[in-house]
């Protein structure tokens, strides 16, 4: 088991990751964050939680299991989300040239070890 700060630190060490947050999936509120200046953690938390919740409903509706990892790719970068145990979701904001494979591994590892 690792504390939230350690999980966020591991994720933000990945090249191209601009910040990471631990959020409450049902409320869309920030639990812990490690973000570069200029990134609105509150907005990311609210919107990422909504996205994960809707994807969860969609996959349930389609008779599939809930997603274990979400990658939302845009022209200016990506938002990654890894739902954890209970209600927590680990979210990362990445640049276009970020090492997304490494970020994915680190996030899934961190979220599985969260205290």
């Amino acid at each position, binding site marked *: 088991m690792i504390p939230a700060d350690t999980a966020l630190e591991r994720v933000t060490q990945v090249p191209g990751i601009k910040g990471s947050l631990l959020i409450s999936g*049902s*409320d*869309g509120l920030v639990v812990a964050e490690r973000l570069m200046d200029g990134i609105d953690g509150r*907005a990311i938390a*609210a919107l990422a939680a*909504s996205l994960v919740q809707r994807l969860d409903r969609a996959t349930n509706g389609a008779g599939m299991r809930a997603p274990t990892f979400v990658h939302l790719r845009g022209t200016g970068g990506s938002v990654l989300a890894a739902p954890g145990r209970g209600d927590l979701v680990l979210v990362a904001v990445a640049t276009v040239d970020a090492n997304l494979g490494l970020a994915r591994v680190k996030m899934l590892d961190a979220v599985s070890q969260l205290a």
Partner: protein
Amino acid sequence: MRALEPWVAAPLQTFIDESSARLILLMTTSGQVVAQHGFSRSVEVMTAAALGAAIVASTEELARVMGTQRFAALVHGGNRLSCMLSSFGTPRGRWIGLVVFGSETSVGIVQLFFDQMVEELVIAAPKEQPQRQPLPETFEDELNASLKELFGR
């Protein structure tokens, strides 16, 4: 959605669309309704406005007693429905927003787009204050007209 002042309508409609809130009430700190969405009976609006204004007044007094600044928002989380109360400054004085939302949205989304609506309201508010007359002769007619505007009947 119904608003007494037209400049309130656009920011409020955006908030309704983005937040998926079920009921919304914008009012002054004295409980005068400025706009509403989702209510079907005037008595519900009047009751909610009075209770909301009283709760905000209580929390502001609590903040004063505790020697702190006023609370930004008060959220009551429920199993089926939740409620958020927040007071904010506008060029027309302090207003209160009462938002009731269900599990189709979240408190984070509601707070995020509520703050956005407040910013838009502050920009959209006309700079000049309307002339206030203490209870003019046409008060009853104006009150009935306002209720008709809010409920469409």
